């Protein structure tokens, strides 16, 4: 493809963004004096700040490109990632889980595992999370360089090093606070930089209903424009999946596993100024999450509608004879955006990449410092020393990400493995957290062995299919399936195996005394929070509104 050309104005807008994020890092350094400031952003953020950062930490550019591309490939079913695959879990986190997280004053998710279970479960999760975070971070860096090289013609090494160094500088200077600030700037950059694609697409084609009509006319037998009505028969929808796979795999395990236990996002809620703000964090974020399909899904549908019209001249790129689905969004930007707006669109993608990198780095430095370094290596470390270690581990973390990125460049197939990595770590962890938080007699040994078995089973299921040890239909319970369907089902089985082993081992091993579990387990903790505020100010009230909007959206696009 001919690279998207940038004018001086576009470069100016990109440079302004870099000046802003670096400037913010230096500005915030003077307010970063102790470990609380560095790792928890001083615990003084409002629910709006924490909520937008909570959402943005997940909103990487790879997700934007990938989900638009996936919509082109699978149709509107991809919206499930934003609705059933996010909203119920976010509301559950805010209403039921956050009081235990926030009130126990932990700094990380492994920190909760230490209090609820024991040190070995904490270290196991800390190490697996740290490895996962660095691998994902490095792969993201590689993917960013690939995208910038493909669509903008930028030098591979230069774009990777500049963005990595920029992230390292501002996270080292002021930790989580600067990561949160840049995530919020990224949120606005993405909305202003990419929503216009959908607006202009609708203007060109005529209307939303015209887009849907064109796609339905082109594909009358396989639905690309509905959410549920074609889900009882996997052969009738673009994702080739049964509704049970969506509900159990995505809606329950993958979604709850990610949104309620992945420290990358939950860390943002820990920075809230009080428990009410922390509970409101994921609830507010759920409203913005529900709005995102109006960028990514709509752009994907516009790309389909244009590509089936030969007169439009719109066609996705081909790589080695295969369609490059990720090219949908950059090609739409190139099609519609005049100078200045191109710079804004590219900045939105860059901001997404870098904020994702910063999110991974700030989560890594916290888990490394508290759950590995202080927990295993130096138990008597002082406040000042831990702050220093946070900064050092930031630089080392970015360095390892760079090494991983070069590793990925040498072995591009590693990308395929990484797509499944979340289900290896997060799906079983959700079973451990759910059982531990709601059932008092789950034991430390039960949690530890359940977690190990769950992670191993997920990994082996992935490898088994990849190397043809057994057929994928054993996992998906269907003769037709897509990779996405396999991901959903694998997550469900890993969760179930972890839950069964945890319960089974807990029946025969030593339980913790109930008095040690106060504040950590529902039923043993007095629920005294938010009692004296009016109902319309309670997180529950906003959760009900969010749930209502969620139901309406699902019915509208049924």
């Amino acid at each position, binding site marked *: 493809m001919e690279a998207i050309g940038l004018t001086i*104005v576009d470069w*100016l*807008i990109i440079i*302004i*963004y870099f000046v*802003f994020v670096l400037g*913010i890092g230096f*500005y*915030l350094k*003077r*307010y970063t*004096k102790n470990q609380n400031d560095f790792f928890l952003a001083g615990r003084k953020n409002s629910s709006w*700040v924490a909520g937008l950062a909570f959402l943005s930490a997940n909103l990487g550019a790879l997700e934007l490109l990938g989900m638009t591309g996936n919509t082109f490939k699978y149709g509107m079913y991809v919206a499930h990632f934003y609705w059933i695959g996010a909203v119920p879990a976010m509301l559950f986190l805010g209403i039921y889980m956050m009081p235990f997280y926030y009130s126990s004053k932990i700094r990380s998710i492994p920190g909760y595992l230490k209090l609820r279970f024991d040190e070995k479960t904490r270290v196991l999760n800390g190490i697996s999370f740290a490895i996962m975070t660095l691998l994902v971070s490095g792969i993201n860096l590689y993917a960013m360089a690939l995208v910038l090289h493909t669509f903008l013609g930028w030098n591979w090494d230069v774009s990777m090093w500049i963005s990595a160094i920029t992230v390292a500088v501002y996270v080292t200077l002021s930790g989580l606070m600067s990561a*949160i*600030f840049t995530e*919020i*700037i990224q949120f*606005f*950059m993405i909305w*202003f930089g990419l929503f*216009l694609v959908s*607006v*202009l697409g609708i*203007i*060109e084609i005529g209307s939303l209903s015209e887009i849907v009509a064109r796609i339905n006319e082109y594909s009358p037998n396989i639905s690309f424009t509905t959410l549920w009505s074609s889900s009882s028969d996997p052969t009738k929808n673009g994702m080739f999946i049964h509704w049970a796979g969506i509900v159990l795999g995505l809606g329950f395990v993958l979604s709850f596993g990610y949104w309620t236990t992945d420290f990358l996002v939950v860390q943002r809620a820990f920075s809230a100024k009080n428990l009410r703000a922390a509970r409101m964090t994921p609830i507010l974020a759920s409203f913005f999450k529900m709005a995102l399909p109006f960028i990514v899904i709509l752009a994907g549908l516009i790309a389909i509608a244009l590509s089936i019209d030969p007169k439009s001249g719109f066609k996705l790129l081909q790589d080695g004879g295969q369609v490059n689905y990720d090219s949908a969004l950059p090609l739409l930007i190139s*099609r*519609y*955006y*005049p*100078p*200045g*707006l191109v710079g*804004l669109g590219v*900045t939105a993608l860059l901001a997404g990449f870098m904020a994702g990198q910063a999110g991974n780095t700030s989560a890594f430095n916290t888990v490394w410092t508290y759950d590995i370094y202080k927990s295993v290596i130096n138990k008597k470390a002082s406040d000042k020393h831990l702050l220093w270690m946070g900064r050092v581990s930031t630089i080392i973390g970015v360095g390892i990400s760079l090494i991983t990125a070069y590793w990925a460049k040498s072995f591009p197939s590693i990308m395929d493995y990484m797509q499944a990595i979340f289900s290896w770590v997060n799906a079983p962890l959700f079973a451990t957290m759910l059982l531990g938080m709601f059932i008092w007699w789950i034991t430390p040994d039960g949690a530890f062995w359940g977690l190990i078995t769950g992670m191993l089973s997920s990994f082996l299921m992935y490898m088994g299919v990849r190397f043809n040890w057994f057929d994928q239909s054993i996992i998906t319970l269907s003769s037709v399936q897509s990779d996405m369907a396999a991901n959903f089902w694998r997550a469900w089985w890993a969760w179930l195996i972890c839950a069964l082993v945890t319960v089974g081992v807990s029946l025969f091993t030593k339980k913790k005394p109930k008095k040690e579990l106060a504040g950590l387990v529902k039923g043993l903790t007095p629920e005294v929070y938010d009692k004296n505020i009016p109902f319309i100010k309670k997180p529950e009230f906003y959760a009900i509104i969010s749930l209502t909007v969620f139901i309406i959206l699902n019915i509208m696009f049924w």
Partner: protein
Amino acid sequence: MSKQKMKPIWYFVGLNLLIVGGIIFLVGIYQLIFPPEFRKVLFYVHPNIWWGIIMVIFGGAMFLKTKGK
């Protein structure tokens, strides 16, 4: 040194949108007066003018509201 209260994030977001929106708007006006030879699809709706204005209004309101804080 840190006695001065920290500026809220909305101040930085507003300033960023104000500057970038202003640049995009000015480029749109320039292209309206001197139309380029090679034109993008939907050039005639001049998205950079009205989108730039929206950004300036949004960013300006955010910036001015938080400037004194």
